[in-house]
């Protein structure tokens, strides 16, 4: 007990990291489910349907499958780095999420620690870039250490691609930093408070629209997703940098990719979409009941689906989902809780919207050719984001110059 009372920051951080890790791991698993479902429905298929009702237990089955598969290491591989690479990729992907504030800093535990963010750093944005800039290593080293031509080519491509697009990614964000004048996430969000004409939220989305487009494009390239998934182009490179990986090490690369997707979506939400701010003015109190109402609607849909479509064990499984959603919805309608979860609710809703956009892109667009990718990054994206930065800086400086 002595240690706990002496180090409140450390203990609170450890507890919050454990909870966040659990949530993020579950989210990662169900993001794969969401992706398969959404793409399937866009392509007029059903997607996972048999393992659990609507394939809801599919991520669990996949996880168990990865755990029990044989873990093959190529004989000519560099064993140390071959093992290190997936751990590096996943660890960096997950630790970046620890910096994100998921709700307002005014929500405190009794001992004065913030509930919704693990750490509240003054240089939060810089630190996030520090972590994500290390992300190249996981992929590059995996490609090199496998001692396979396809993997090496994939690793080389991804290093070149990630270095190129990281420049545009960082520069497109600087416009927002110039507007807000801070690197702290909570202050960046607070700078977007307020409304134009009393109802249009003052998010950076409108003044920094070009920056937002540049960021979104560069972020897709940074995370190696379609249409920029050259490092794992299966028509050319089998599976790119993770060709030789099997079993859980392969799963770790998979999880790292989805963790990176969540990170860049969080960052887009914080920088351009107002983070945990609600899109509606505070006087509209009915918005407090949106999360509960949404969950209750989900429960109603599940209940109808359980009765009308499901048979056998699937009926039981979907029944449990119905009860969970219904119970959660009722809890969220309780006024103090409804007010308290506003921040995380809007944050999650915005992240989900961006992730949906990501998946939509994957189902829609074909892959770039490699030279197209490079010339697009250097000749179009970089000049546009630079011009955006210069114009933003000029607009900020202009009143100061006129004053003399």
């Amino acid at each position: 007990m002595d240690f706990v009372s002496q180090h409140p920051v450390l203990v609170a951080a450890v507890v919050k990291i454990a909870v966040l890790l659990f949530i993020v791991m579950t989210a990662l698993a169900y993001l794969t489910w969401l992706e398969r479902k959404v793409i399937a429905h866009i392509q007029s298929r059903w997607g996972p349907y048999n393992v659990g009702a609507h394939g809801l237990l599919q991520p669990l089955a996949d996880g168990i499958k990865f755990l029990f598969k044989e873990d093959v290491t190529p004989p000519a591989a560099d064993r140390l780095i071959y093992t290190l690479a997936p751990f590096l990729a996943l660890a960096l992907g997950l630790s970046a999420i620890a910096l994100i504030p998921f709700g307002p800093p005014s929500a405190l535990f009794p001992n004065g620690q913030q509930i919704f963010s693990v750490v509240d750093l003054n240089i939060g944005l810089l630190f996030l870039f520090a972590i994500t800039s290390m992300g190249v290593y996981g992929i590059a080293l995996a490609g090199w250490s496998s001692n396979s031509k396809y993997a090496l080519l994939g690793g080389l491509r991804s290093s070149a691609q990630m270095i190129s697009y990281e420049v545009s990614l960082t520069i497109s964000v600087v416009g927002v930093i110039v507007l807000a004048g801070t690197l702290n996430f909570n202050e960046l969000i607070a700078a977007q408070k307020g409304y134009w004409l009393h109802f249009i939220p003052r998010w950076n989305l409108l003044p920094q629209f070009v920056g937002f487009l540049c960021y979104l494009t560069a972020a897709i390239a940074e995370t190696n997703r379609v249409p920029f998934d050259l490092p794992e182009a299966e028509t050319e490179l089998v599976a790119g940098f993770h060709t030789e990986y099997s079993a859980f090490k392969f799963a770790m690369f998979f999880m790292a990719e989805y963790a990176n997707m969540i990170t860049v979506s969080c960052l887009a939400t914080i920088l351009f979409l107002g983070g945990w701010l609600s899109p509606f003015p505070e006087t509209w109190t009915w918005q407090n009941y949106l999360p509960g109402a949404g969950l209750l609607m989900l429960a109603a849909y599940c209940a109808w689906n359980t009765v009308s479509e499901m048979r056998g064990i699937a009926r039981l499984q979907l029944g449990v989902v119905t009860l969970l959603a219904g119970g959660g919805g009722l809890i969220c309608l309780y006024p103090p809780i409804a007010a308290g979860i506003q921040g995380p609710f809007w944050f999650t809703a915005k992240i989900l919207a961006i992730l949906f956009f990501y998946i939509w892109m994957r189902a829609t667009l074909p892959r770039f050719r490699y030279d197209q990718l490079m010339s697009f990054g250097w000749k179009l994206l970089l000049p546009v984001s630079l011009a955006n930065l210069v114009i933003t800086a000029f607009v900020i400086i202009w009143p100061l110059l006129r004053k003399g």
Partner: protein
Amino acid sequence: MSIPIILFLVCALVAVAGAVVLILAREPIHSALALVVVMMALAVLYLLLGAPFIAAVQIIVYAGAIMVLFVFVIMLLNAGVEERTDFSKLAKFAGVPLGFFLLLEIAHWLAHSPIGAAIANGAGSSAGESSTTELSEMLFRQYLFPFEATSILILIAILGALVLARKEE
């Protein structure tokens, strides 16, 4: 022991160990990775000194950009295992003892001279955490000219590299 001291000892050990591996490793990639480890450990040391901005920039610039380029080039050239020649006689009989002597001398100086003791006890280091705002005020007001001069120097270096790398027509 308090947590900062434990962190310092761990990171200092990791930095030294990384530096030793960097010299002794035979694969160029292992050396490059050891250097990345040294950079990370140094970044934590900067954090402990109350310079978070420098720590983040250390990771972004050195570990995240320069070393990635190193690794990229090593991968691209597919550099093999290094040939090891024996230590030169001069290094073995003069270098190693002199190195130890230097280390002893620094330790003695820190322990016994008044200036060394003052530095060891934290004189000259700023109290608490320096903010990014203060740093940029210094950089863009007080030291504006050296800052701009450095950036022009770097630009010239880039142009030089471009000229050198361009193929003769």
